[in-house]
């Protein structure tokens, strides 16, 4: 079977789904989830808030406050579902689009903006949040995650590692090597692939002739495809995979079947390569609307709740904007910091020379 991304609107049968696009709870033979009303409301709140942060970041880029932004629009459920499955002790390795996972790990959204504003290469402490820095080079982080998981394994710690990557990334050598390492060493790692159907302008069929989750079997570990727009299913499937990893059952590949609703980044123009009808089909599967419908349908939330979340989102958007604009520019000499841990004569010399050079301009203008 050749896999056709344009038929994405037709859910393939092997897809794990617990909440339909209409907000109906459905059963799955292998996966279930038992959530309190409060937990469902919390998930809804997460989804709305990260979408709001994302929207603000896009606007900030449009206004020249960020150099670029990679939007998570449409992928909120995949990220919140998997992110909320993690325990504090678990470690996550993101790409550049995991703003929702960052949210779950307690990273201040403003700290995500530093990289995109050009003031730093990543503004949070990975160890503090158990959330690694963003990785822009496609696929590299999958190997880091496996190595980290091998460390966890040697420590005998009760923790798992999760690594995020895209559909395009599955073509990289590094990712395939990561699969091999994880398999051979039975590493406690979960490979979380967000198949958003596109790698910039290239549709999935440029990367694979089989559904991505099936790649896992060739490497010797289980693969599962989950409805990436279903936050319940993403939570349930990721929880199970993390549990298996912690219990010594080795890696799992999760393919979260979703859609990149926006441009690849704010520099991209998707009208050059994809048709609007595809977007329309996926709009009907919106990850937030279905949770809202579920809450309504089951009278688990009233209008006051939804209004309060919207108000909180508006506040968050304003706050992120304000603090983004307040973010100080780095000082020129900062670029010489942290290149090495130990003293380094060459860097020190260049730093001094450049300081003297800059001093030469003082009072000159």
């Amino acid at each position, binding site marked *: 079977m050749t896999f056709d991304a344009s038929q994405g609107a037709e859910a393939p049968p092997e897809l794990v789904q617990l909440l339909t696009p209409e907000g109906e709870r459905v059963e799955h033979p292998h996966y279930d989830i038992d959530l309190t009303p409060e937990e469902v409301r919390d998930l809804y709140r997460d989804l709305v808030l990260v979408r709001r942060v994302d929207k603000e970041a896009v606007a900030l880029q449009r206004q020249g406050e960020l*150099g*670029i932004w990679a939007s998570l629009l449409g992928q909120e459920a995949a990220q919140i579902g998997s992110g909320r499955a993690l325990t504090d002790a678990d470690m996550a390795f993101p790409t*550049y689009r995991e703003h929702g996972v960052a949210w779950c790990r307690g990273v201040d959204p403003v700290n995500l903006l*530093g*990289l*995109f*504003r*050009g*003031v*730093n*290469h990543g503004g949070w402490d990975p160890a503090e949040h158990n959330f690694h820095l963003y990785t*822009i*080079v*496609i696929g590299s982080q999958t190997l880091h995650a496996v190595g980290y998981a091998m460390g966890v394994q040697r420590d005998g710690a009760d923790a798992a590692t999760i690594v995020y990557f895209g559909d*395009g*990334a599955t*073509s*990289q*050598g*590094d990712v395939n090597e990561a699969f091999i390492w994880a398999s051979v060493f039975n590493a406690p790692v979960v490979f979380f692939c967000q198949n958003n159907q596109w*790698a*910039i*302008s*290239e549709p999935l069929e*440029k*990367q694979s002739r089989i559904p991505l989750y099936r790649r896992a079997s060739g490497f010797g570990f289980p693969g599962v495809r989950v409805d990436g727009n279903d936050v319940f299913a993403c939570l349930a499937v990721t929880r199970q995979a993390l549990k298996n990893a912690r219990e010594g059952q080795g890696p799992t590949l999760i393919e979260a079947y979703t859609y990149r609703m926006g441009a690849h980044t704010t*520099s*991209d123009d998707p009208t*050059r*390569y994809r048709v609007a009808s595809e977007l329309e089909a996926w709009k009907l599967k919106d990850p937030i609307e279905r949770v809202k419908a579920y809450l309504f349908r089951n009278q688990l939330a009233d209008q006051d709740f939804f209004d309060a979340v919207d108000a909180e989102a508006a506040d968050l958007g304003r706050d992120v904007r304000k603090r983004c604009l307040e973010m100080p*520019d*780095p000082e*020129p000499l*900062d*670029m*010489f910091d942290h*290149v090495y841990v130990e003293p380094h004569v*060459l*860097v020190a010399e*260049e730093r001094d020379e*450049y300081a003297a*050079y800059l001093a030469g301009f003082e009072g000159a203008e």
Partner: protein
Amino acid sequence: MTTLTLAKAINEGLRAAMEQDPKVLIMGEDVGKLGGVFRVTDGLQKDFGESRVIDTPLAESGIIGTAIGLALRGYRPVCEIQFDGFVFPAADQIITQLAKMPLRSLGKLRLPVVVRIPCGGGIGAVEHHSESPEAYFTHTAGLRVVACSNPVDAFHMIQQAIRCEDPVVFFEPKRRYWEKADLDRDATPVPFDRGRVVREGRDVTLLAYGPMVKTCLEAAAAAADDGRSVEVVDLRSLSPLDMEAIVRSVRKTGRCVVAHEAPVFSGLGAEIAARTTEACFYHLEAPVLRVGGFSTPYPPSRLEEHYLPDLDRVLDAVDRTFAF
């Protein structure tokens, strides 16, 4: 005579090469339908079809490795690496295989593969999108390395690179993609491995390539206002170097500054300075000076104006050569 941007000039050069030789292929990430993230291959897939303009899977080692195979089968692949910082997954195929296979076959095999790399900074990008990795490749025997600086050269050089029987690493100055110039298609191009004096002068020679040529021309113009006559040589070919052009200029001026965006330490400027000193020792009034990036990873974009050598830093180096 037509006016076109550097990006469009490469596009036209690719088109001309594809029209002339059905063995010329284009391959890379997003080069087909999108026309490349910088639109350098815009329209080529539409006109030449998907079997000649290939959107590849997302894997640089795969791009170069399969290009080698296609070349073994008589094709002339032109590979696009999307950004400088993403050439490294292909480094093994380029350095270990592409560069060495012709020699290992005692000349029986030829690998006329072109590796196009948009390079350099100045576009406000995030990390890995602003690097200048040329020295890694000039350090590798078996590769020819060139850098274009303007639309006219770009149009001719890409065609020369494709016709060349050796593998060529072809650097494109991404912050100059939108610079325009008039192109006379019938004018005789400068030979592929030759540098070119782009501004004549008497007092000091500035050696540059790629994005820094424009900066050096601006520096030369500013220096002229102060009564200093600066000659600017666009090296164009980085491996091999056109030492004849360099030596001719430096023997005339007696002073020399090499400028590049890449870090000065172990940069191409070191090789140029050493060779120029050896060849011009008795003509030099001052040591050959280098100006370039620092021994730090390329900084966040809000600091890139400090990292990139600008007109002032080039002029500062010029001043220093007069202080000896």
